[in-house]
């Protein structure tokens, strides 16, 4: 009787280890957009803090990429650094150090901002990256004032698909015009929220207080 019970226990353990492995990926995918247009370049130091925070938060198996937003951003060339962390923690630590070095190098080099801001193109690029990474929980962090400015040739006014992606707009600074008429700022954010949710995004949040970052990422 005891033997039969132990056999059952063993079988259930084997089943748990082989057959019942959770098929849905628990890995997170984070794609961070850093606005490098105009005067927003001055905010790169804050962006570095956010990147460092994210590097400290992400776990083995998670994917992380940082891309710049400039005049036309629907291209892999704008990805500053990307990584899928190794499952082994010690190797993951090495990857995190390398990632940090790459981004630090980028912040040191970047002095001049681009003329236009193609946030939509960068978002499409980001969603493609996240879908390819196969992450279970996808997030696009937009470090920008959310003011999109496209040149005349760039076309972005078409429907896009951003299913199950969570959006966090970080450090959305107020422009001079926003100060004159705050409705511009609020309208801009509302417009983005409407557009992203319509495209299938799971959530859109705005975080201007960096202290709240931890709460957002732990959710």
């Amino acid at each position, binding site marked *: 009787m*005891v*033997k039969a019970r132990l056999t059952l226990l063993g079988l259930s*353990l084997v089943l*748990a*280890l082989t057959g*019942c*492995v*959770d098929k*849905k990926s*628990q*890995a997170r995918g984070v794609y961070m957009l850093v606005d490098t247009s105009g005067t927003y370049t001055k905010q790169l130091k804050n962006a570095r803090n956010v990147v*460092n*925070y994210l*590097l*400290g938060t992400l*776990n*083995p*198996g*998670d994917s992380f990429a940082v891309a710049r937003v400039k005049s036309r951003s629907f291209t892999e060339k704008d990805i500053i650094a990307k990584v899928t*962390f190794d*499952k*082994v*923690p*010690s190797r*993951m*630590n090495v990857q*995190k*150090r390398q990632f*940090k070095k790459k981004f630090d190098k980028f912040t040191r080099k970047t002095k001049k901002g681009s003329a236009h801001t193609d946030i939509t193109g960068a978002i499409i690029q980001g969603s493609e990256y996240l879908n390819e990474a196969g992450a279970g929980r996808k997030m696009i962090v937009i470090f920008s004032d959310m003011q999109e400015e496209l040149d005349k040739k760039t076309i972005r006014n078409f429907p896009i698909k951003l299913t199950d992606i969570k959006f966090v707009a970080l450090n959305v600074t107020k422009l001079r015009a926003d100060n004159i008429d705050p409705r511009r700022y609020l309208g801009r954010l509302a417009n983005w929220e409407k557009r992203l949710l319509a495209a299938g995004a799971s959530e859109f949040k705005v975080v201007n207080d960096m202290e709240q970052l931890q709460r957002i990422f732990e959710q």
Partner: protein
Amino acid sequence: MANDWWMIWPGNPALSAIILFFLLVPFLWAGRHSMHGVILAITYAFSSPLRTGARWLMRGAQELSNRNRTVLLAQGRAEVVQAVEREFDRISKKIATELHDYPSMQRKVMDEITNIEEDYKNCTEVPPPPPEWTDAIKNIAKIKKGTDGIVEKLLEDISKSIDRGYTKVIAEYRKAYESRHKILKSFQPSWRSLDQEMKEVNKKVTGLQEAAMSVDVHMEKFEGIITETKEAEHALTSSASIQLAISTLVLLVAFGGAFINSRLIALPMSEMVGAGDYITAGMQTSDVAALVIIFIEITMGLFFMESLRITHLFPRINNMEDKSRRILMWVSLTILLILAGIEVALAVMRDQIVVASMELKQSLAGTEETAAAVAAAAAKAGLVAKIPMIGQMVLGFILPIALAFVAIPLEYFIYSARTVLGTLLVMAVRGLALSFRFAGNLVRHTGSALTHLYDVAIFLPLLIERSVKKKMGIFEKKPDEVISFNTTLTDFQKRHASTGGQ
């Protein structure tokens, strides 16, 4: 309006219902026996299976109880036999170790006694023989004084010689006493030795007596079990309940230890099996791997205890040849020690991972220089900073060994749970049977009540019927005209049986 078809008095449902009822009463009276039959048949259809179910459950509970009793007594018998065997083994060891030199001790005691006897004989006082001249002195003493000078002179001489003799005798007598005292003094060591020997014998014999008393107690218990007395059964059941409570408590403590142990090795295990794979949403593969290691350690501990014959969960291991059993014991012990060693290594690895992770976080939070400074400060802290790591290493080694002992409470838990759960199951089945019986009776009496209620509704024609019958001289068997449930049910059952249950 479609629902008003039954209203004899349109617009007045109450009056319509009363009129309708009075119209129906003759029909209800006419169909009284059949309606009673229908009501009783329906209630019987429900109450009968319930009562049958109750009987079946009670029989099942009785069988289960008998089975529990048999198992309980068998377990108790086995335990008492084991205890008696152990006591006999203890007695035989005591005899072998403590009383093996009893013959020599006895010889020694006998020698001592012989010595004492001889010495005693030697020291007995030998009264000196009375001198032969005492009779002559008696006669001389009768001679009167002062009659003759020669006689006086003779008496004086005799007195002097007697005094001299007396002094000599007294001296000899004292000398003899002194020598006897010396002999008596020489008794002392022999007495002491004898006393010591007797005390030792007493101590050993007392130990044996205690063991014999313990055997007596076990034998009394055994007799109770053999004769299957209620007292023995109750004693065994309550003993099983206590054992279950204690073993559950110990197992909970052990599982707490196992959990802590698994948390200790989960992080370093992620270096081996990876940290990003999940078995379920909240459980990483590395956590499960750590748990598997713990389970293997517990299993090895179980085999170790089995091969030592401390536990008896696997009869095949217990019945193995001594050589094979010893091999199994060494194999399980070796694996257990290897796993404990692995845990020590994992504890070191865990510490390194934690330090590396902290360094990384510090470098992310500040600069590389800050991180390096923190690392250097940690290195300077020396042995004090290593206390957690040493603690983890010690825990890593001790916990697997401690977990090996889980086998003992586990065995108690399994055997006592069988008894306690069996008793609880019997109680539950009996409770269920009681509720079935209660429901069956309730349905049966509801049927009886409904027949009475039916008669209440048609009381008027019943009264008329009774008075008519009375006038006609027809007497019924039951004067109150109420058909008892039992009679009707019996009739119904007879009809049911005659139709073959159709």
